[in-house]
């Protein structure tokens, strides 16, 4: 990574001076009149992830986890069958819940009800499909609509009545857990036999055919490359400062390599699970929403300075309600995936589900203070948590050790967030 930064640094001044000469000549304005190149801070790595320093410690943490477990397990950790286990369907649910949590965390709020909501929605789906014999789409649709309704309620209390989200969602978490017990009516486990629901994550066929498993990521990488190059060309044409061509190429190659490696690992075993495709698809969708639409920008603005956002004419209440609603809908999707994976819903909510979802987001670099972080954080966070659990179980350590380690890593991540934030503020003035 170090040499990328170096490479990116050197071409910058020449690029800027080109713009200068160009702009001074025929453009009605020139970037160099405003942007003083000598002032350009060393932020190439940050720019790579749209202004977020949080990724460096996260990547280092992930590297430490991977290297440590590879060494102590004698390489077993990196075997494809283990890696595909690691990124397989069982973490899909946590990743989708975590993705929802990110939307709320970006506002500087928290949603403690995601786990309850996800199980409750799965229970609603299971009851409709198994007990009432409703069509599959009705059952799944009802789960999603329930998620949306719960999110609306959470959002209403937080945004309109200004009750702290911590309390609203804590109360919700307890209440919805009770509601699902009530709905299950004493049944501890409700098996799901609906073949469509089971096929989402819980059957031996829940994998994309190779053509799609390889084709979709390839298409994604091509679209990404086209998008980045199009952006580069249109900026160049507009006389704006652009990233260096070296960096452009490095960026595309990096994404392509990541895609090839992940797909390669999965394909060498069973193929790409539907769940993985689903959560990567959702992450890409929300990445586009957060970075390319005004709705997304307003979420960051509300998280950064709600008062400034309000004065800029942003509907702060609407943004908050929307984020809570999307979070709960994602929780419902996560619940459906988990129910499918287990071919059943249980009255008992896995106590680590909530912790892991929020911890994955925070460990991945999303700030608890709001306004900072990317949805890609969830992949890093899930990989770190998944890696810890997986690695420790390879060493036949139980959940006791893995939860203690996870706690330490979480504390470390939040500390890094708080310290970085202070450092940035200090250098800022």
């Amino acid at each position, binding site marked *: 990574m170090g040499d990328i930064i170096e490479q990116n640094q050197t071409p910058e001044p020449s690029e800027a001076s080109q713009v200068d000469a160009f702009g001074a000549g025929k453009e009605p304005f020139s970037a160099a009149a405003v942007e003083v190149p000598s002032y*350009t801070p060393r932020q190439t790595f940050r720019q790579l992830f749209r202004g977020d320093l949080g990724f460096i410690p996260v990547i280092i943490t992930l590297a430490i986890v991977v290297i440590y477990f590879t060494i102590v397990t004698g390489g077993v950790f990196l075997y494809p069958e283990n890696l595909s286990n690691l990124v397989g369907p069982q973490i899909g649910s946590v990743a989708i819940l975590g993705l929802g949590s990110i939307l709320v965390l970006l506002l500087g709020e928290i949603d403690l009800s995601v786990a309850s909501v996800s199980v409750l929605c799965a229970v609603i789906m299971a009851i409709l499909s198994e007990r009432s014999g409703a069509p599959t789409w009705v059952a799944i649709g009802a789960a999603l609509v329930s998620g949306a309704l719960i999110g609306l309620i959470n959002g209403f209390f937080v945004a309109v009545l200004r009750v702290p989200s911590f309390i609203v969602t804590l109360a919700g978490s307890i209440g919805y857990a009770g509601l699902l017990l009530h709905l299950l009516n004493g049944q501890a486990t409700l098996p799901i036999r609906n073949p469509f629901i089971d096929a989402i994550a819980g059957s031996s066929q829940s994998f994309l055919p190779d053509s799609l498993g390889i084709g979709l990521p390839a298409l994604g990488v091509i679209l990404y490359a086209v998008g980045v190059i199009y952006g580069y060309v249109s900026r160049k044409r507009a006389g704006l400062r652009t990233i260096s061509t070296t960096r452009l190429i490095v960026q595309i190659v990096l994404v392509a390599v990541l895609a090839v490696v992940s797909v390669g690992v999965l394909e060498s075993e069973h193929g790409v699970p539907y769940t993985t495709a689903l959560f990567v698809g959702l992450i890409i969708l929300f990445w586009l929403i957060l970075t390319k639409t005004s709705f997304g920008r307003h979420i960051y*603005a509300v998280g950064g300075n709600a008062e400034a956002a309000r004065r800029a004419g942003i509907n702060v209440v609407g943004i908050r309600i929307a984020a809570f609603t999307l979070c709960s809908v994602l929780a419902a999707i996560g619940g459906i995936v988990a129910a499918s994976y287990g071919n059943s819903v249980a009255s008992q909510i896995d106590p680590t589900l909530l912790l892991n979802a929020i911890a994955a987001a925070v460990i991945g670099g999303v700030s608890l203070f709001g*306004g*900072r972080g990317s949805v890609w954080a969830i992949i890093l966070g899930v990989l770190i948590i998944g890696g810890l659990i997986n690695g420790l179980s390879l060493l036949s350590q139980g959940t006791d050790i893995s939860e203690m380690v996870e706690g330490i890593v979480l504390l470390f991540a939040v500390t890094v967030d708080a310290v970085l934030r202070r450092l940035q503020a200090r250098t800022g003035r």
Partner: protein
Amino acid sequence: MADSITPSVGAVSSPTFRGRPILQMRGITKSFGAVRALGGVDFEVYAGEVVALVGDNGAGKSTLVKTIAGVGPADSGEIFVDGMAVKITSPQMANRLGIETVYQDLALCDNLDVVSNLFLGHEELTPWRSLSEVPMEKRTLEVLRTLDVKIPSIRSLVASLSGGQRQSIAVAKSLLRKAKVVLLDEPTAALGVAQTRQVLNLILRLRDQGLGVVVISHNLADVFEVADRVIVLRLGKRVATFDVKNTTSEQVVAAITGAEFGELMSSGGNGASEGR
């Protein structure tokens, strides 16, 4: 060029003040319960001039600015923008009339970059509803160049900018919205010497763009540097209007404190000792 103390409205003290004011207020009153914060204040700004609004604490400066900004609408009185009678009942209304306020806290999102902050709430979109960054960046460069602002990059986070640069971004926001009148609340408070210089330069640039600029400040040195006229409020009344070209700061201090001008001069021009 013009006469000394001119409490009259239509005083032509500089060539740019021709025609009717861009913003005019007549007989503005505002009470908070039994307290009369503004008792029939007249106020006017012309295009292309800087008006400093000064006064002691509790003189009614903030209250007056709030009535203009739409944050605390006036109880009674008339307001004209470009000669048209208007009612300003909300900040949005004020913005629509071309009145922008830069508050002391600047109202910037530290976690967003310069371009995002400038266009916050007014983003330009492509036909398929995604953010249209290239036109926004071009506009940003244009506006910042007009104001002669220098920053590392228009994509740097606002958190990484200096106090003066942040102030510039907040002001640029109003220029971008095609404001006719910009209100600046204590723009140089808490800034260092170089930063203050930068902001004063910015105010002059705004004036040169033909905007009416209203500056609220406690710092008379700054006021004398940029203002064309100084309007003094005391106890909710407009007590004096000065043309800075032929006014001394002692005169302004006297008007602010309500001390007799002669008394003040005889005490060696030290306004503070007589301040009552």
